[in-house]
């Protein structure tokens, strides 16, 4: 079972890992956008890791969403907040969640993010990574989840490298975006890697 304390520990790991990826993510975003993604992600997780999480898992996830909103209002920050908010709604009133519930939470987050950003799967965004993770976790034992998520996120980055970006700032680069990694997909990889770090 995963409680609010376990979530706090995981956030601390992600915060440390993404802090180290700040420059990498900024330059990936610099090539296709405004170059702020590393800041958004590292600041967001630092703020979330520093937050005092309530015992109710739903409220804890809401707190994380709010932390993201406070420190970043770039697209990715808002999307991450949206994802956590959707997961929060599903787990409200519980002091712990079952690992078996995780695929459903990821799916809920993915769907909320699709709605918020009016994006589609296949547009070469973080959504594709979320979708790959959700599908990879389906029916897995708790023990294998993190590795599966990392594999899925990493495979998404590579799969989309050769495709053009169709959403967000990167869309303007059109064919020039082929060959470049989507910064949001890369950020998602670094985030899930953080869970294992």
């Amino acid at each position: 079972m995963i409680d609010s304390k376990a979530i706090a520990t995981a956030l601390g790991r992600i915060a440390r890992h993404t802090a180290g990826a700040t420059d990498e993510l900024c330059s990936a975003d610099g090539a296709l956008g405004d170059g702020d993604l590393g800041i958004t992600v590292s600041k967001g997780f630092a703020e979330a890791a520093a937050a005092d999480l309530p015992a109710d898992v739903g409220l804890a996830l809401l707190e994380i969403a709010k932390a993201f909103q406070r420190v970043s209002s770039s697209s990715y920050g808002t999307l991450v907040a949206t994802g956590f908010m959707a997961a929060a709604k599903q787990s409200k009133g519980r002091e712990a969640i079952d690992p078996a519930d995780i695929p459903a939470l990821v799916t809920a987050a993915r769907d909320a993010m699709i709605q918020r950003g009016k994006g589609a799967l296949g547009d070469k965004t973080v959504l594709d990574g979320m979708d790959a993770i959700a599908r990879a976790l389906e029916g897995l034992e708790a023990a294998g989840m993190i590795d599966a998520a990392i594999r899925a996120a990493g495979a998404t980055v590579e799969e989309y490298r050769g495709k053009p970006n169709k959403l967000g700032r990167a869309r303007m680069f059109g064919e020039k975006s082929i060959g470049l990694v989507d910064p949001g997909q890369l950020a998602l990889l670094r985030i899930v890697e953080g869970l294992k770090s």
Partner: protein
Amino acid sequence: MKKILNNPADYVDEMLEGMVVAHPEIYAQPVRRVIARAGGATAGKVGIVTGGGSGHLPIFTGYVGKGLLDACAIGDVFASPSAEQMAEAIRLADGGAGVLRLYGNYGGDVMNFDMAGEMVEMENDIRTTTVLLTDDVVSAAKEEAEKRRGVAGMVYAFKIAGAAAEAGSDLDEVTRVAQKAADSCRSIGMALTPCTIPQAGKPTFEIDEGEMEMGMGIHGEPGIWRAAIKPADEIADEMMTRLLDDQPLARGDKVSILVNSLGATPAEELYILFRHAKKRLDAAGVEIVMPLVGRYATSMEMTGATITLIKLDDELEGLLKAPAHCAFWTV
């Protein structure tokens, strides 16, 4: 970085503080990074809010004022404000008749404004509507026009929607004319030099001494072509051709035209551009109403210009000409 500032992190807050103390009869800042009308919301009037990144004065905050906007949420330079700040702007603009969210189509802004709309609907029972500006013709093909960015066309939309709200129209009516204004606007930009985001400390893009970029966005988004600087008349010709291709005008049509500096380009050069743009419209038999030439939507010290055309019918023309007042513009 050839800029006049203190700590780059304080750029936006000090700028807002200066603006409010310079014009306390127009602007107030009841909540950090949210500018509202000095007198508060007008009871019974539809509120109009906008929001977006800093660094574009008079856009966005500058246009809060009578006959224009009621409140504005403002982010860091070229960055979206937060959903919570936008929600505050909506609350401050609310005079009980609902609030129109009127802003440019940028991913981050849209997500945050949508979230803000949900927040105030749930928490404050305020009815809101949305009109997005998508006037930059080079930012997506005509078939995907809804994906285009909003640029200087915002000025016309603010003016026209603001006049309708001031005249007492209800939320649906204000939303209708705002959408009509947005649909009637087409813009295109060109840039000669970048600007510097204070906290980044380096130019937003690089460009050679003798080069220009046609179609570049106001944050340095890539344009259509980059090549040696062309004569002003050729620049005006290409810009007008692209605008008129996207929204053909017939003999007898009426437009307003905004020839806008991105910041450093002086009024002298805007008039040189205007001179040729007018020749094009004259030749097409199109009448110009209330032309605007100046700095209406900038990117700090960027060199370059944008041209916006808005096709007017009697309704839009009347609203465009109605009185309005803010620190940057008096009609």
